[in-house]
């Protein structure tokens, strides 16, 4: 059976409700999802609806089940986390053609600013997608980002330049220790801003250190600031070269000249 793109796109609803017919149809749609940012964001929104429907169906489970599950869990080995050598960056592509591109960039910056100010934690991408898919959200987002940008400019000119750049890319990835690293990348000027949210606190004598990990050399960006309410203040890095990844490692206090531990996140930087 042949599917045209348009057909595939309208399958977002059926997919989110687990209502596709066969494994082959599911894998075909999964492939499409990996290429279609607007479909992926739509699916995430629909899954929220499905979640509400599941909660609405709440029923009392047999009481004896609890003990059986707990006993089984105590005897079941947990899967280790996936160590991703290639982090999956989430590009804020221009895949929503009905929204003017500039609005998308403004929404991106609005979300980025929101992250830095601690309004959002792990929901950046869904907030971003919501913002992009809901045109009416843009008006207030735009007002907010303008206000925040003015504020940010007073704080840090470099930060404001990147957040205000017309071409930013928002990347985020969870770290192997938990928490999320969020990067706003301005490929044109080869600069980025990075902040983190929800990273576990380190024991005394240990710090998080940021790196640009390139194919040829590894350069220290500096130490990650101490988190305030789980969110770190933004750090600016410049001089990104093709092939660089943004890495984060745990180092002894004061930092190291080169990484001494395995990065807990390594985000490829598309420049």
């Amino acid at each position, binding site marked *: 059976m042949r599917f045209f793109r348009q057909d595939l796109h309208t399958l977002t609803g059926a997919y989110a409700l687990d*209502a596709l017919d066969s494994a082959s149809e599911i894998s075909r749609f999964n492939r499409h999802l990996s290429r279609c940012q607007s479909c992926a964001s739509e699916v995430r929104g629909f899954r929220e609806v499905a*979640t509400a*429907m*599941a909660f609405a169906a709440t029923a009392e489970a047999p009481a004896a*089940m609890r003990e059986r599950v707990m006993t089984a869990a105590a005897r079941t080995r947990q899967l280790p986390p996936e160590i991703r050598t290639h982090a999956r960056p989430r590009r804020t592509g221009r895949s929503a053609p009905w929204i003017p591109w500039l609005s998308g960039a403004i929404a991106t910056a609005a979300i980025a600013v929101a992250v830095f100010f601690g309004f959002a934690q792990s929901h950046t991408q869904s*907030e971003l997608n919501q913002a992009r898919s809901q045109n009416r959200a843009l008006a207030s987002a735009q007002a907010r980002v303008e206000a925040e940008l003015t504020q940010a400019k007073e704080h840090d000119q470099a930060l404001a330049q990147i957040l205000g750049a017309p071409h930013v890319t928002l990347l985020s990835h969870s770290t192997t220790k938990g928490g999320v690293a969020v990067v706003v990348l301005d490929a044109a000027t080869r600069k980025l801003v990075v902040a983190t949210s929800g990273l576990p606190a380190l024991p005394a004598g240990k710090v998080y250190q940021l790196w640009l990990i390139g194919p040829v050399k590894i350069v220290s960006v500096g130490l990650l600031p101490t988190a305030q309410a789980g969110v770190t203040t933004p750090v600016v890095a410049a001089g990104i070269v093709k092939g660089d990844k943004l890495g984060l490692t745990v180092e002894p206090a004061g930092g190291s000249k080169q990484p001494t531990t395995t990065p807990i996140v390594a985000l490829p930087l598309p420049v």
Partner: protein
Amino acid sequence: MNPNDSDASRFRSATADRRGERDLDDLLVHVARGDQGAFETLYDRMVGPVYGVIRKVLRDPSQSEEVAQEVLLEVWRTAARFDPAMGGAATWVTTIAHRRAIDRIRSTTAAADREHRTADVSPPHDEVAEAVEASLDRERVRRCLEGLTEVQRESITLAYYGGNSYRQVAELLNVTLGAIKTRIRDGLIRMRDCLGVS
């Protein structure tokens, strides 16, 4: 609510945050590290929706119990694979639950009796009526389902609660495949907006 909040954040606060989803995310992080106490708390928070949605799809209580146990054990086993960037913990858990229920009917239902099973599904209006309870979730979902057109509502409930594929839904409602895909999608867009503006 802060009038400056975007619709996007209002949507999130209206759904995910009301269920304390951030706490659930944290719990899941602890579960991933082997914390059984955290797993017990997570179990108590999620067993109702997990068992409920499976029961809705499978109907049979003992089969539902079996699948719910498998799902909750899978949550324990695979907690480290949870990626908060892809959605909240509640969504992750209920998605596994619904998928396992669907896997069960799709694998155990031979093509021959598939017709029979789909014919057994109660009218979606019963699904809506059943949902009328004091629970805020039920009330909101019911209200939002009622705001859909009849075909949208029937398509969504037959698919999600009835466990039918969109082809089966098309067959049941006697409309084309293209129309069903569109109606499910349009209905979900309306549901999303409706659940967002509480």
